[in-house]
């Protein structure tokens, strides 16, 4: 955490309200995101208990698994979920625009431009917290290897249609969420705490209710008080007033409310199965329906506050204007979405359990590159982030105090003007270090020449200010005289960074078919891996 962030946190403690950490929104928010608030069963891997899902804040769809250990009920839940999520995804997949991409021509080996489709918008999935992202991954993993009866008539426990497809999409979204700066799948706590500093630790910021309370407390209450209330206050029955954002539930809820309700449901189901005639069965079916309704109400009561909190958080985020480069990163997300859509349409098998060497290395390289890109872009979009970089000596801003025209010593001299900048920042500049500034959205490079200490007015020494001489080296056109506007003028305020603005990709990796034996050799033909075996515990 940088000192500026620390300071913001301390100010939040002092004032009792969250303090801004950003002046713009650093993530793209879709016009119509799909919010997903899942709950899971404690102790079971990938056994959902229920969820609220939908794109309309006033009309979420409630999905419930009355007995989470029953595989058939779980499948029914997943099928319903697919019924909500897949149409949303398909709608975005159909609306395309033409785009260009450079590809290597397989015959000539040259890089050529190819016209391809790019989806005009991508579906955006919002979950309340980071644990929600993990749960999306887990759901994806649990579904993508399943087979439907149509795919494989022999399969012993066929999954409902669309469930394997939903698994592949959720896997893709979970995987994409690991790329820094991506916005296909967002955890609201992460995004909100990126933009506001609260007076609590980052550990406590994982609690969505407490986090929002710091930012937007109710009237006549400080953020600190409201956050404490959201975190700990329980009602007369010992239940949290603000249930955890999930997917894990509060143990007190499990033990006191959910377990008895599930037990009643189990009893009603056993009784129905044992019914001897139609009349009795009708009565008992009524009991079963009542027991199921009770569980639905319980799940609704635990997910609804989180659902409202997520939309409230989105409202808060929308009060910030979107950062310039967030749109650029969203375009990358759209490429990612389009790529996966094409793989699904081409009938490729689901993502494997383990990536092959080339895919894994590519993923890591992408994450590293995107991390560097994100850091640079956030600083360029937001003076507050740039302030942190300036404090760290990775950038400096100041006023241009002098310009001296100079030329390179080649046969055709090009302009290499010397610019003197007075700054209070203390950048760590090595000899001939490259620095960059943004010139009409493109980076312009300059070379560090020297420090000039102690200007004539003498005030510099007190403030720690000094002057830096730079030699501008590019983006000035082809002529002998630099193009107008390409060189700063005396009195201009400029900001140079020591980091590059645009990221270059690393060395190209071989194609998967050419994986060297040191890395396991070629992965071979992509196959459909077998589904997880069904064990007796899955079938009650």
């Amino acid at each position: 955490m940088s000192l500026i962030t620390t300071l913001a946190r301390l100010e939040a403690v002092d004032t009792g309200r969250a303090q801004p950490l950003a002046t713009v929104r650093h993530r793209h928010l879709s016009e119509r995101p799909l919010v997903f608030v899942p709950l899971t069963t404690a102790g079971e891997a990938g056994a959902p208990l229920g969820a609220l899902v939908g794109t309309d804040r006033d009309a979420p769809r409630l999905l419930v698994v009355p007995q989470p250990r029953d595989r058939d009920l779980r499948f029914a839940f997943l099928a319903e979920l697919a019924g909500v999520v897949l149409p949303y995804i398909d709608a975005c997949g159909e609306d395309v625009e033409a785009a260009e991409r450079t590809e290597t021509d397989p015959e000539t080996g040259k890089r050529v431009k190819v016209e391809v489709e790019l989806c005009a918008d991508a579906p955006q999935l919002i979950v309340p917290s980071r644990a929600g992202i993990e749960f999306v991954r887990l759901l994806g993993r649990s579904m993508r290897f399943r087979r439907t009866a149509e795919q494989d008539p022999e399969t012993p426990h066929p999954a409902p249609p669309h469930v394997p497809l939903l698994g592949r999409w959720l896997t893709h979204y979970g995987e994409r969420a690991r790329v820094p700066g991506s916005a296909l799948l967002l955890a609201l706590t992460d995004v909100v705490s990126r933009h506001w500093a609260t007076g609590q630790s980052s550990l406590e910021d994982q609690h969505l209710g407490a986090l929002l309370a710091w930012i937007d407390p109710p009237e006549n209450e400080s953020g600190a008080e409201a956050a404490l209330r959201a975190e700990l206050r329980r009602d007369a029955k010992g239940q949290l007033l603000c249930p955890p954002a999930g997917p894990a539930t509060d143990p007190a809820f499990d033990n006191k409310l959910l377990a008895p309700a599930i037990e009643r449901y189990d009893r009603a189901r056993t009784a129905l199965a044992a019914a001897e005639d139609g009349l009795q069965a009708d009565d008992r079916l009524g009991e079963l329906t009542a027991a199921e309704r009770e569980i639905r109400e319980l799940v609704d009561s635990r997910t609804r506050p989180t659902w409202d909190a997520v939309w409230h958080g989105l409202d808060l985020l929308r009060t910030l204007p979107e950062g310039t480069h967030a749109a650029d990163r969203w375009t990358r997300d759209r490429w990612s979405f389009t790529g996966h859509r094409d793989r699904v349409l081409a009938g490729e098998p689901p993502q494997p359990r383990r990536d092959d060497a080339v895919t894994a290395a590519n993923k890591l390289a992408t994450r590293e590159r995107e991390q560097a890109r994100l850091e640079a872009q956030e600083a360029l979009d937001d003076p507050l982030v740039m302030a942190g970089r300036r404090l760290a000596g990775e950038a400096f801003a100041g006023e241009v105090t002098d310009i001296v025209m100079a030329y390179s010593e080649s046969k055709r001299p090009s302009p290499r003007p010397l610019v003197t900048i007075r700054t209070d920042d203390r950048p760590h500049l090595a000899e001939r270090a490259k620095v960059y500034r943004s010139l009409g959205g493109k980076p312009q490079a300059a070379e560090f020449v020297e420090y000039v200490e102690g200007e004539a007015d003498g005030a510099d020494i007190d403030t720690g200010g000094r002057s830096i001489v730079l030699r501008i080296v590019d983006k000035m056109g082809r002529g002998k005289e630099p193009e107008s506007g390409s060189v700063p003028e005396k009195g201009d305020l400029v900001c140079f960074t020591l980091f590059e603005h645009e990221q270059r990709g690393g060395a190209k990796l071989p194609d998967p078919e050419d994986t060297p034996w040191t890395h396991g050799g070629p992965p071979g033909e992509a196959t459909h891996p077998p589904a997880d075996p069904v064990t007796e515990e899955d079938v009650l």
Partner: protein
Amino acid sequence: MNKAALASSLGSPSAFGQSQFAFMRGNAFEARVKADGGAELLRLVHEKLDAGSEPPVAGLVPDLAAVGPEGRAARTALALREATEAGAWTLLDHPMLALDVAGSPAYLEPDAVVVHPDGSWTVVEIKSFPMLDGSADAAKVGAAARQSAVYVLALERVADRLTPAPEVRHSVLLVCPKDFSNLPTASAVDVRKQRSVTRRQLDRLTRIEDIADALPEGTCFAPDLPTPDLTAAVESVPATYAPECLSTCELAFHCRDRSRTEGAVTSLGRSLRAELGGLTTVDDVLSAARGDSGDPADPAVAALRRAAELRAEALGGREGLRSEVPGRTPC
């Protein structure tokens, strides 16, 4: 001492609890792993840790029942000695081990300890979080490794009393459900690092007698005392709260309240403390940042003032921009 009861009496009850679903599932899984005289468990130990030895056919499972923790610890030590001499696969189900912590014995109950035919011992930890495609949640594995390291240390104390001292293996076996099933799978976890960390921490712990000596005469932590008396008693023991305490200590909410009231910066995270040098309270830091106090020659103060300036510059004129936000209140 029952810290949970103490925390409730102090008015800051702890939030720990286990869902009965998790509890049932965990128990069912452990029972399944240890079923049939631990056949499956011994097979996993053989496969993952000791593939060179003879495969276990029917392991011995000695009876470890005894009265009281001391009795059970003694019984465990005896069973370990016998099993080591016997040179056969032996499973000790829920043995009891004693470890000296700050001068007082603490009793520990690992899920299982396996004695190999060569006389070496292995700690087995059974957890109910899944191992998905061969990998499990790193944080949970780390916690399990730290827990097992303590058992390894305690076992080493038992081994030291035998001649020749048997080897306590530094790789423990972590048994977890495989993927989404209830079938066990296992992985060897090297706990040498956790073992040396724990050993050093145990050596450095202030002895309980020293803490007790420093307390005023008559200090009592009985949960039925009136809250002010109890608060005063708890206050007399120094504690430095950090957010990590929330996940481990029942008294964390109490300490957090105190820490926040005092304005200690560590309540926001340990890393802050390192960044801020000698400034330990929120007021100190903010007043130093505003230039009201602090020595400008102190690098921490100078950096703070620069940070405050830069922050104000970047936010310049933005104060009050946070207009009324539409929407509901959280919760």
